[in-house]
């Protein structure tokens, strides 16, 4: 009997693109990615001579074990959720806004001006002004790269990134120069905000958590049910289609980036006024980058952003806890977050492609 053989050079299998998207599959893949990353992390921890289960349990205890630790965790969640929402808005449009870090800082700077120099305003007026100017400042800072992207197709990834560093040095300038606290004995730092300029603390966490909780459904509805949200999706899918459908692509890009930057700016105000009670150069402290991982892991879905933010805040807070308990560097949490993202990126392949084994005799 003749045995048919594969033609030389014909690969063993081929891959085929899957056109339809399945939310269930996407969810399962992401859960698997997190589990795979935790397993890989656990393997790494056992190499260091620890029992991974004990460590993970300690991380959980350190972040949700008591009322106080839970409050601490929520405090981490707030800027993360808002920034991840900001990232989602931009990424949905395939505009790679890596600059929420900088937009957050600029928002915090604008709010701090009022906290430091208009501190005697009535509390409600002061806080609302701080929130408003932080949104405008962050939004404008996001608008700059959006304008150049829309007008000259300037690389927005690099531009938003450079803007992060520029914003950071602006804080350094302020704290060493015009805003330096004369009462700090020559130490370059900005004065602490007066009580009047601080956010109230419902349930022991600054008011930002209520804003974050409100922002999630708002962004969800905006993306899902508004005309503008639809335009974002179309521009993200194909700029040509969007133009063809009569949309002004530059307008959509700039509007969305103003919103994205504005959200990040607001997060900056909440962080400065609610958590730090002053302006420091760690006001963003890498949240803008973690937010990117959160948004991608959440598949740019605002509801999922909330869930993933809690997971990541757990890693962050728990990371600090295991540092003091087991002398494991707190950066282990960052490493783990990076590994999770790698696994998500790898596993997403199976959402977009199916593998077909070339059968003998075909």
């Amino acid at each position, binding site marked *: 009997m003749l045995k048919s053989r594969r033609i030389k050079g014909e690969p063993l299998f081929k891959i085929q693109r899957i056109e339809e998207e399945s939310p269930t599959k996407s969810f399962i893949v992401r859960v698997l990615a997190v589990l795979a990353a935790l397993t890989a992390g656990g393997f790494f921890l056992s190499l260091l001579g620890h029992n991974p289960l004990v460590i993970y349990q300690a991380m959980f205890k350190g972040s949700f074990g008591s009322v106080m630790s839970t409050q601490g965790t929520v405090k981490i969640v707030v800027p993360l959720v808002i920034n991840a929402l900001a990232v989602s808005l931009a990424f949905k449009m395939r505009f790679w806004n890596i600059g929420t870090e900088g937009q957050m800082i600029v928002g915090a700077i604008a709010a701090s001006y009022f906290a430091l120099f208009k501190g005697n305003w009535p509390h409600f007026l002061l806080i609302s002004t701080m929130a408003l100017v932080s949104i405008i400042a962050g939004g404008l800072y996001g608008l700059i790269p959006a304008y150049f992207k829309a007008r000259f197709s*300037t690389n927005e990834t690099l*531009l938003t990134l*450079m803007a992060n*560093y520029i914003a950071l040095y602006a804080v350094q300038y302020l704290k060493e120069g015009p805003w330096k606290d004369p009462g700090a004995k020559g130490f370059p730092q900005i004065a602490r905000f007066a009580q009047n300029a601080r956010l109230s603390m419902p349930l022991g966490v600054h008011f930002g958590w209520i804003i974050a909780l409100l922002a999630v459904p708002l962004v969800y509805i905006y993306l899902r049910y508004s005309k503008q949200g639809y335009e974002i999706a179309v521009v993200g899918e194909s700029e040509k289609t969007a133009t063809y459908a009569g949309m002004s692509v530059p307008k959509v890009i700039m509007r969305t980036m103003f919103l994205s930057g504005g959200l990040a700016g607001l997060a900056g105000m909440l962080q400065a006024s609610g958590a730090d009670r002053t302006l420091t150069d760690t006001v963003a402290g890498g949240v803008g980058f973690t937010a*990117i991982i959160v948004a991608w892991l959440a598949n740019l879905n605002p509801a999922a952003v909330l869930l993933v933010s809690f997971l990541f805040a757990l890693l962050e807070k728990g990371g600090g806890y295991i540092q003091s308990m087991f002398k494991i560097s707190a950066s*282990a949490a*960052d490493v783990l977050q990076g590994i999770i993202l790698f696994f998500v990126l790898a596993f997403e392949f199976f959402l977009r492609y199916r593998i077909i084994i070339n059968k003998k005799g075909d």
Partner: protein
Amino acid sequence: MDLNYLISFIYAVIVAGTPLLLATLGEIITQKAGNLNLGVEGMMYIGVASGFAVAYYTKNPIFFILAAILSGALAAFLYALLTVTLKANQTVTGLALSIFGTGFANFVGETITNTSPTRTAVLDGKLMSYFKPINIPLLSDLPILGRLLFQYNIFVYLAVLIALVTGYFLFNDIRGLNLRAVGENAAAADASGIDVFKYKYLAICFGGALSGLAGAYISVITAGGTWTANSVSGLGWISVALVIFAGWNPYKAIFGSAIFGALRVLRFYLPRQSFNLPNSLYGALPFLVTALVIIFTSIFNSKEIQQPAGCGVNYDREER
């Protein structure tokens, strides 16, 4: 301004520009293969940390260099696996690498310093002596020229050599031509019999190796052999922008990195009396100029100098 002052300025510029040159060359080759790897910052951090850790424990200069290069290449291999084979989004994968690399370096650094009784980690003096400025009898002692040309650390010469070799490779070698074909139009290159995947993998890993080498440089030269947190601090991102500034040309990258090296050391060489600017402005300067460069190159978009057409887009054989 006297001559000695000018010479030491140029000297400092070259020393500050070298890690930028190495990383930029790697990214040029990577982008020429059609992959925009935004993980340069992360790969440099991985090179810094792996190199430092190996140097710290083995005290061996060869192992130090190898660890930095191989870890950078390994990180790039991961990027290649995700983007070339698994066709993950290049932008997000690169970012993931940068985020991971930064965390990884902090983790390694903190682990080493935490176990040290002094809470600091300094590399072995003998190992460091290999990376001191070279001393060639006669040549290094020449007036002016000796200091300008023959007194750098070994990496500087290596970087310039790599720039010349990659330039020659890209523009004068058939494999360089093939590589450019892959980056411009992978489908056409594939159809003409070029092994697209091999070229992409090799180019990306080469890019990572050079980023790792730049990390080694930062470990022993920029940070002077003492563990320093956040030692890369944006150099990787500037390198990605330098690729655009240099117009994907390794020869021009030499001058580009010198210019950005100058921006980094300017604050120490401008006379205080006439330029009394705040430190923060000098710190922001390289990033400000980079932002302006990115904007202006996109406004005056020339026909001849263009990003490889296939850059950023994953090649899918089934979509031919």
